[in-house]
C-alpha cells in the first residue's frame, strides 16, 4: 500500500493541493483531513484541487471531493477543481459522478483567477 504524500500549500490566500496520479483511498481521506486543518489554520478564501495528474477518478474520490467542497463551503470558502483530464471527464460523466458544490477550471491559473474574482 503506497502512501503517496499529499501536501497543502498556501498560494496568495487560497489553499492548493496537487493530487498524485493514482491515489489510494487512504491518501484521498488524508487529503480531506489536511485541507480542513489547513482551512482552519490559514483562514483561506478557497481551495484549488489540481487533478491534472489524476488518471482514475472513482466514486470514493468524487464523494470525498464533494464532501470536502461542502466542508470548505461551511468554513466560508470556495472550491475549484482544476485540470481534469478529458478521459476522466468522460468516464466520470458516464458513471454519473458529480462534484457537488465544487467549481471547475481548465487549469490552476484559471482556477486562481476564478477564486480571485470571488
Amino acid at each position, binding site marked *: 500500500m503506497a502512501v503517496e504524500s499529499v501536501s497543502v500549500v498556501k498560494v496568495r490566500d487560497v489553499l492548493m493541493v496537487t493530487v498524485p496520479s493514482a491515489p489510494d483511498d487512504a491518501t484521498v481521506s488524508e487529503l480531506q483531513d489536511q485541507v480542513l486543518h489547513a482551512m482552519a489554520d490559514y483562514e483561506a478564501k478557497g481551495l484549488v484541487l489540481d487533478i491534472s495528474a489524476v488518471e482514475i477518478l472513482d466514486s470514493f474520490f468524487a464523494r470525498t471531493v464533494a464532501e470536502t467542497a461542502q466542508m470548505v463551503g461551511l468554513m466560508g470558502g470556495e472550491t475549484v*477543481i*482544476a*485540470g*481534469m483530464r*478529458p478521459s476522466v471527464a468522460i468516464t*466520470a460523466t458516464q458513471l454519473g459522478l458529480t*462534484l457537488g458544490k465544487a467549481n*471547475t477550471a*481548465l487549469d490552476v491559473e484559471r*482556477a486562481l483567477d476564478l477564486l480571485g474574482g470571488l
Partner: protein
Amino acid sequence: MQTKEQTQTTPADEVSALRHRLARLQARFRRLSEASFEAIIIHRQARILEVNQAAADVLGYERSAMVGMDGLNLVAPASREIVRENIAGGYEKPYEATMLRADGSTFPADLRGKVVSSGADTVRVTAVRDITERKQARQALEESRRRFRTVADFTYDWEYWIGPEGEFLYVSPACQRITGYDRQAFLENPQLLQQITHRDDRAALEEHLQHEAKRDEPLFLEFRISTRAGEERWIEHACQPVKDDEGRRLGRRASNRDATDRKAMEQELRVKESAIASSINGIAITDLQGSICYVNQAFVEMWGYNDVSEVLGRLPPDFVERPREVGQVIEELLDASSWVGELQAKRKDGSTFIVQLSASLVADAGGRPIRMMSSFVDVTEARHAQRQIARQAEEILELSTPVIELWEGIVVVPLIGTLDSRRAQRLAEDLLDAIASTQSDLVLVDVTGVPTIDTQTARHLIETITAVRLLGADMILTGVRPAIAQTIVHLGLDLSNITTRSSLAAGLRVALGILGEGM
C-alpha cells in the same frame, strides 16, 4: 436202349438212383443254403417248399412251421399285389417290398427271385434281404443332401460348381437374381457365363477360367456382365478347387457377388477425391487429435511448401501465427460441428497471411465424428481492401467532426450529417481533447446540419456538456432543429442550465459576449 453190360437195371432201379441223386443234390443245396447269409425261400407259386435258417430268423418263424405256408403271408398286405405279380410273371430283377414277420412287425426288404426248372417241375428261389439299415442310411444321405441344397440354394451370393470337364454340376438359384438367367439356363449351356460377360472383360474371364482349372489356390476376378434385361452389373468372383477325400479333383467351386453398388460408390469417391485434389481452395483433413492426414496441392502452395510430405502428420498450430487460436477453433468445432471465421496463417518462411476458414466434422455411417475437414481461402487482399475502406471511413468521420479553433478561447464544432451514438462518443473525446490542448473556455457545437438524433445520441450529447463543464469550460448548443428539440424534451432532460441558440451566428454572439465579460 443199348445194353452194354449184362447188368440188369430195372426201371425201378433207375428211379431209385435218380431219387438218391436228387436227395444228394438236395442235401448239397441245403448245405449251401445253410451257409448263405441271405434268407432263401424255395417255393412253387408262393407255396413254400423249403427255407433256410436265415429266412426263418429274419421272418421270426420256426423253420418247420414255414414249410407248406403260403409265402404271401410273409408279405405285408401293401406289397402282396406286386409280389404276386412278380411271381406269376417270373420277374427275376431285384425289387423292394415290405415283409411281415411272425410277430406282426414289418421291415423293408430287397427281393430277388429266380425260376429254376427241372423238367416239368418249376420252382422259384427267392432271396430276401432286410434293407432297414440301408434304407435309413439312404434317408440320412438324402437328408444331408437336402440340407446342403438348402444352404447352397439359399445363399445370397450365386454359387456354382463346375466339374472337371467344364460342365456346371451345381448352380444356386441366386443366379437368377444376379444375372436374370435361371439355373436351368446355366446347366444347359456351360458357355453362358462367358456369353453374358462384357466384351472388354471376356478375355480376362476366359484366361481366368483356363487358369483356375490348373491352379489349387483361391483365385479372384472382377468382371462385368449383361443381365438378361440388358443391365450392366459388376461381378466379384472368388473360386477354389473341390477335392474328394482322396485328393482327386472334382472340379471348382465359385462364389459370385453383385458388386455393382460398391463399384458405383468407388467411382463416386474417385470423383470426389479428384474434386478435392484439384480445388483451388486449400483443403486439409485431420484426425480427431488434430494430426493432418491429407492436404491438397492448393494448401501446399498457399502455405509456401513444396510437397505434401512437408505437411502431413503435423499439427495445425504450426500453420498459424497465434497457435492458441487453433485450440479455440477445435473446441468450438467439436461443439457445434462446424466453424467459419478468419485466422492469421503462417507460411513455411514465417510470413503471414489472412485466411478464411470453413471447418466441419466428418462422421462415419453411425454418426460418430472421425475427421475434421477445413477449406481455406486466402483473403489477405480482400481484408486489406476492407481495412483501407474502414480507415477511410474513420478519416471521413474525423473530417465530419472538425474542431475549429475560431480564436483564442473559442472552439467551434459544426456537425453535419447523421449523428449516431458512435459519432457522438467520438465527438466527446475529440472535443474534450481540443479544449484541453487549446485551453479554450468555450465550445460551440452547431447541429444545424443534423436533421435528427436518437435518444441514445441525445444522452451522449448531454453527457458531453456535463463533461465539458467538469473540465472547466462551457458549451453552447446552436442550430437545434425542431426534431432534435423534441427528442431532448421527450427525454425529460433538464436543459435549463444549457445555453442553446437557434443559429450558429446567435451562438457566436453569446460566446463573444461571455468572452468580453471575462476580459
